Structures are given as C-alpha cells and as structure tokens.
C-alpha cells in the first residue's frame, strides 16, 4: 500500500492531485468522464460576490503548446453558486476548495462568509492573481502588502484551509509568498497564468477581445517549476504546483521540486479523464518504485 496523502494545513488530501480553478467547472462537467472521488480535491471556477458574464468573445486562443484565456471570471455569483453548485459539491467525498476572486477585501470576506454559512467547503483559494480582470485582481497579487491584508482579513473568517494563489507576473514571487504566509495562509498555489498575447497576422487583430490574456499549458511549465522552486525555498507552508501538467512525469517534476500537491489545468480540456488517471498513475509509480510515502519524493531535489 502506498500512502499518497498530503496535508495542506489541517486539510488532508487522499492524494496530491487537484484540479485547477477555471478548468474544471464546478466538477459536475466532469462527472460523466471520471469518478470525482478519486481525486485529491477539486478547486472550483472562481466565485465572485456578484454574477459576472465575463469578457467578450473571443476569449481563448491556442498558442504553441499552450493557450491564452481571458474568460474574465465568468460565474453566476456567490448566491447562485450556493444554490446551484454547492449541493452537488456537498454530495462529493473528495475535498472541495472554492476559488474566490474579488475587487475589494470586503468582497473576498463576503463570499467566504456566505459559503461558510451555507455549509462551507474544505478550503478556499484566494485568487489575488487573475490577469484577466481589470479592476484590480492583478494589482492585488503583485503587491505583498495587499496580498497580506486580504489573507489576514479572510483568515479571521474561516478556520478552513486557506490557500493563496500567486501570480508569476511579478519581480519577486517570494516576497508575495512570504506576505501571505505571515498573515496566516495554510498553503500557496503557484502559479496562475503568465500574461501573454497573440495576434492574427491576417486580420491584424489580437486573438483575444481583451488583447492580452493568461497563458497556460505545457509551454509555461519551466516557468512554473522555477516559481515553485523559488517559493518553496522562501516559505515553510506547503506549495501547490500548477502550470502545464499534462502527465505523470510533470507531476513528479513538481513534487521533486518541492510542491506538496499539484493542480491540473488546461490538460482537463484535452483529456477530461486526466486528473483521475494521474492519481492512479502516481500510485502505480510509487508501487513500482517501492515508494511508501510521498515524503520521499516531495522536495527531494538533488542539487
């Protein structure tokens, strides 16, 4: 038997495979493809205080080994989330983490308070780093002071696992990471998308209606690994590695670099069964390599 469980603060995941926010809907979209309870956990699409319809079409574009998106946090708002999505999420045995986005500290607090008072979930991931919302999302995540403030404010509201998701579009991700850690974050998600852009040379128009967007997919993996490495060496709390994971080798690369868990994003679009497959493949890998606990892999980088 292999023990794939990992801890993020007090939250115990049965395995380190999570799904990344915005790439897995509210889980229901994948119920026909996989057994959601085989996952370490689900991270929902961002939930905001008010409903958001998101940005105009086109809001995705394929790039080489990656994709750009500027969905713009489209979501039905926290009230509809509670009535329409939460019952399904509550019916699952897997851990549920709600990704929360907001324009003000108050709104972060409001969303989480509402969910807490509606039965709660297993954890919250603060999206201080979405590059596709003009009003301030990106500014939050690039400023250690504001990131710290948001973390502190939310920390007061919930004892659940509190994760802060960091943007790579900064000079020093470790500074932001330390700010979140010192204000009580239980874990850090590294990383959100890189700011990117693509232009159609025939029409000479940007491929996204918002001109720039967030780059994800295997093309960004080396950047994500470097960011995880930097953050792991800057903080004591666990780090969740995200960026370009397409297969088991990628999962192992993040774990070896020091991530305690990982999230699969873009890959869900291409192979909706990938997350369950990765959990199974990781177990098989450990079995065949006589690895009894993930502690033998996590952070075991030979430098």
């Amino acid at each position, binding site marked *: 038997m292999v023990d794939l469980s990992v801890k993020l603060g007090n939250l115990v995941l049965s395995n380190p495979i999570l799904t990344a926010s915005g790439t897995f809907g509210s889980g229901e979209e994948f119920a026909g493809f996989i057994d959601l309870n085989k996952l370490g956990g689900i991270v929902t699409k961002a939930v905001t205080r008010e409903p958001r*319809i998101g940005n105009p079409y086109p809001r995705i574009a394929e790039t080489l080994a990656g994709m750009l*998106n500027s969905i713009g946090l489209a979501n039905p708002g926290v009230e509809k989330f509670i009535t329409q999505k939460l019952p399904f999420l509550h019916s699952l045995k897997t851990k549920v983490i709600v990704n929360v986005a907001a324009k003000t500290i108050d709104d972060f607090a409001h969303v989480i308070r509402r969910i807490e008072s509606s039965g709660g979930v297993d954890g919250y991931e603060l999206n201080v780093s979405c590059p596709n919302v003009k009003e301030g999302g990106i500014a939050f995540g690039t400023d250690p002071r504001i990131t710290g403030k948001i973390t502190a404010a939310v920390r007061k509201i919930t004892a659940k696992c509190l994760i802060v998701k960091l943007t790579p579009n900064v000079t020093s991700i470790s500074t932001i990471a330390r700010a979140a850690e010192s204000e009580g974050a239980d874990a850090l998600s590294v990383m959100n998308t890189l700011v990117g852009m693509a232009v159609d040379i025939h029409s000479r128009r940007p491929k996204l209606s918002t001109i720039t967007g967030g780059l994800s997919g295997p093309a960004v993996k080396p950047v994500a690994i470097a960011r995880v490495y930097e953050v792991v060496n800057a903080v004591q709390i666990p780090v969740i590695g995200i960026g370009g994971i397409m297969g088991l080798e990628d999962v192992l690369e993040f774990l070896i670099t020091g991530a305690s868990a990982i999230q699969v994003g873009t890959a869900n679009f291409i192979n909706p069964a990938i997350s369950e497959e990765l959990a199974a493949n990781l177990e098989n890998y450990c079995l065949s390599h006589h690895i009894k606990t993930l502690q033998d892999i996590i952070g075991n980088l030979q430098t």
Partner: protein
Amino acid sequence: MTSDIITTQVKTTAQLTTGKIIQKRMVLADVFKLSIEHSRISRISKPGQFVNIKLSDQLTPLLRRPFSITAVNAEAGWFEILFKVIGEGTRRLALLEPGEMINLIGPLGNSFWLSSQTKRALLVAGGLGVAPLAFLLQHLYQLKIKKTLFWGNQTKELFLAYPEIKHSCLELFYTTDDGSMGYHGLVTDLFAEVIPKFEHEAVQIFACGPNPMLQKIQQVATQNGIDCQLSLETLMGCGFGACMGCNVQSASGESYFYTCSDGPVFNAKDIKVDG
C-alpha cells in the same frame, strides 16, 4: 427508430473514446470525408451534434478540434465527418489513413429540433456549413418532411465533388459567389428572394455557415416571423462546458450562452450573432 427523437431537442452523454477510421475520401484538394467506426456515437447522435477530436498524441496542436457529425449509419456502426483543411489541426486530420484510431469526445452539444407543425424544412448552408445539415436531411427524409436546401459556395467545385448532398435532397438551390453554377450571388440573397413564396407557419429554417450569413438569415427569419435555428461555430477550448471559451451573446447582450453546452444549435431569436 432514430426519426422520432428529433422532434424534441436532445442532449446526450458524451464519452471520451476512440474510433477507427474505416474510410477516407478526398472530396477536393482541401476537403475530406472520414468515416469513423463507433457504434455508440452512430447510434445515439442527432443532427447538429459534434465530436471533438484530439489530432495527435503530441502536445501541438494542443486542443481538440470540433467537427459536426454529417452522417451516421447506426446499423453498420459508423459516422462521418466532412472537413476542410484550414490550419495545422485539420492538416493533420487529413493525413490520417483508414485503420488509424482517433481519440474523440462525443457526441457533444444539442441537436436541431422539429416542431410538429412543420411541413417543410428550409435548410441554408454556407460552404462546409452543409455538414450538420446533411445529417439533418438524413433525418428529415426518414420523417418524410419536405425539405429545401439552399447551399452557397464560392465556386461550383464542392457541389460537383460532393454529390451526396444532391442525392439526399430533391429541392436544392445552388448559389456561387463567382456564378460558376446556380444562382450568381450570396445564398442569403437568393434565400431572401424566395422566402416569401413559402407558407411561413408551416416552415422552419435551419442554417449553418459563416457568421455574416447567419446574421442575414436571422434577419430574414425575424422579418418574416419564421421559426429559425442556427448552428454556430466558435472557437472551443474543451467542447463540454468546462472552459467557458465558446461564449455567444444572448439576444439582449446581457449574458452569454455557450456554444458547446447550450448549442451549437440556437433558436435564432435567443442570440446575437457576432459579425
């Protein structure tokens, strides 16, 4: 057996699966038809639905590519797609040969639906937009509903190379942009010209093609108060409702539908078609 279901709009459970290419036909230098063996998809798919294909085991191209189901043979257990090479994904698809397996998700999306009042279906296709309509023709034939197809293309080439369409539709109007065959002009122009001749209560319009064409059809339908369904094509990140990349404006412009999960077939009066 299949023919009753179309009278209500369907959504089916999509499956992540593989199918074997059993036949490949080069229709034109850049247009291909593939017959893919898959008993479930051939059995449960309805006109308007599509499959989302992963074009290689490589990471480039990264995303799947959606293609309408253009015909099924439920007994023999295969379905067909008809596609044009426009980029790297379709270029690779065109390189596949019979015997090879393709990874696909399907059937996806909703289907066209038929009102019980309808005596005649008016189908309007622009170019390869004929693909889902060909499947609809197959159904209408079984339902014994009269049908008229307006099919516009830039030149006559595809008409000549793809007689399948002619064979499945008795009343067929060709239009070409260059006048090389049929009506010389846009399919929407011809359509606007002839639409007054039909008894509006008893007809339904089904259209698929480029957005400017759909916009025009939408207008004509509204002006004439005719029930009209549009099958849309948008970029798709996933095809099954997860990425939210396939948004289509609602008629009011105040919210979005999603082509893959709310469509690809929309009631023309519900949406605003982008220019």
